[in-house]
């Protein structure tokens, strides 16, 4: 049997999504260079399909969970699709070229292929769930940094295990391994 790349849980064949970090070098890396990049925390620059201005939206006092609506309901916060955008932009700022661009895309039945910025790779074996964190009043900025001041979301908080565990310790949350790793 020839070993093949680990399929990721969401059905794509790529073991590591762009921007995902892994703590260890494993044979799951396609090449040695990829392993070195991964070890040194060098991530590819992700090309987002659209320059989404987080700062403008947050500046209009729109809460994160308005668009990332899964965040208090389950594991995934969710990256909004065009339909979410159009809830407002059907009416708001329709004169801007970029809004017209996405309206046109929606009309053609297309959607935006957002690249994930944060996330765990498969071999971190982390089952992260947003909901309990939101329920326990953890600020989004605690783990995602100053996304509200960025245009394109940049990854500027490293989600190492020490980062998680320190917070769990401070908040007296469980630090049992099986809280996250299973």
């Amino acid at each position, binding site marked *: 049997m020839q070993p093949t790349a680990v399929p990721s849980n969401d059905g794509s064949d790529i073991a590591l999504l762009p921007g995902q970090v892994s703590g*260890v*070098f494993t044979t799951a890396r396609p090449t040695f260079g990829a392993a070195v990049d991964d070890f040194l925390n060098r991530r590819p620059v992700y090309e987002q399909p659209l320059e989404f201005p987080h700062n403008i939206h947050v500046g209009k006092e729109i809460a994160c969970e308005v668009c990332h609506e899964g965040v208090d309901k389950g594991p995934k916060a969710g990256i909004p699709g065009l339909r979410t955008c159009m809830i407002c932009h059907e009416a708001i700022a329709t004169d801007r070229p970029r809004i017209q661009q996405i309206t046109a895309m929606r009309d053609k039945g297309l959607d935006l292929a957002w690249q994930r910025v944060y996330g765990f790779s498969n071999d971190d074996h982390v089952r992260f769930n947003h909901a309990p964190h939101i329920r326990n009043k953890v600020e989004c900025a605690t783990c995602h940094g100053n996304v509200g001041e960025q245009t394109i979301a940049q990854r500027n908080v490293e989600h190492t295990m020490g980062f998680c565990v320190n917070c769990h310790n401070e908040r007296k949350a469980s630090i049992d391994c099986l809280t996250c790793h299973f």
Partner: protein
Amino acid sequence: MTQPSGSKINDDLLRPLFHTSWRFFLLVAVFGGIVALGLSTWMWQARNGYGITGIKWPVYWGFYITSFVFWIGISHAGTLISAILRLVNAGWRRPVTRCAEAITGFALMIGATFPIIHLGRPWLAFWLAPYPSDRLIWPNFRSPLVWDFFAINTYLTGSLLFLFLPIIPDFAVVRDKSTGLRRKIYGALAMGWRGTPKQWHRLETAMQIMAVAIIPVAVSVHTIVSFDFSMAPVPTWNTTIFGPYFVAGAIFSGIAGLLIAMALLRKFLRLEEYLLPLHFDNLGKLLLVMALLWGYFVFNERLVTYYGNEPAHMAVFWRTQSGTFAPLYWTMVTCNFVLPLILLGIRRFRTITGCVIASIGIVIGMWLERFLIIVPALGHKYLPYSFGIYRPTPPEIIIASATFGAMCLLYVLFAKTVPIISMWELKAADHLPAKHPHSTAKEQRLGDSHA
């Protein structure tokens, strides 16, 4: 027989360093090729996954762990023997110690790679070391494998230093006898050695301290290796006898390895005047004692299992005694007990050839012993549904065999770069304190049995 001394010692023992024959290159090429084959096989295994070996459910340890225990056992040749002989100040030790200590160092290096080779994820082997990390998790100090890590590292460090310290004066000799780059390298290795009484005295005191420290370490190392097995509730593993049994077996196979190495060195480096039949005779007697001790331990282990009559234990017992593994088992008994008893017990057979044949038998037998401890028990563990058998695959066999090539390669390189017999210790025999009127200097040096 006249004993060599002074500059003749220099000439004889430095010859391999300064004169390179085609045989050296041939040996390096052959053994280097074997090692390269082993390394590439290992890379292949790391690349493809562990599945290319014969390991399977439920026999999760096989050739690699067998080789690990075997090589750690071989490593007990040197430091232990040479430390004991040093401490009791046995005069005949002088030509033997260094080749014994070299075996220790190299066998340990080889043995210590096996736990890494056998890991499912060898690139994470460093997790056994306690190092600062943001996870704050350190190794489990209650695991025998962590004890192994500490014990083997201590023993490896200790025995390499134990090997290195008495070479320093000999490095100085090479430094004085050579020119150019070689002089610089050996000069650095000699670390400013001149040979003042202070240096000699400190060196000998240091060697005494090292000898005292290394003996308990050596005993602990193989006891801890035995703990890898005896700590687990596996039939026939979970027994208190494993500690001493493994230590005795280790010394046993170690002496056998040493005898083989000595015979080869004597032949190849023309050291007939230094490695005398006396040394083989003495070590042969020691080997005989260890064979008897081994027999005693095996008898104990078998008898206790037999009388305990526990079903799970008896299943493994009969599997080795008369079942699948019986041919291997009785080969082991023949190699480890019958053969040495005949060849070493009868004085007429205890020649150099006899010792070497017995030693080869013992090395094979001791390898089999470890295999027979590991595999039959794992394949016959309690629930009959999960019984299984293990057969090695070519990659495992290649890697396990390549380590013998690695041992030979390291030894050839060592004998090429370092005088294989401690020159200053031979010379020192002429300058022993005169307070032992019954032993002459010659006897002190080589323990002349022809007197």
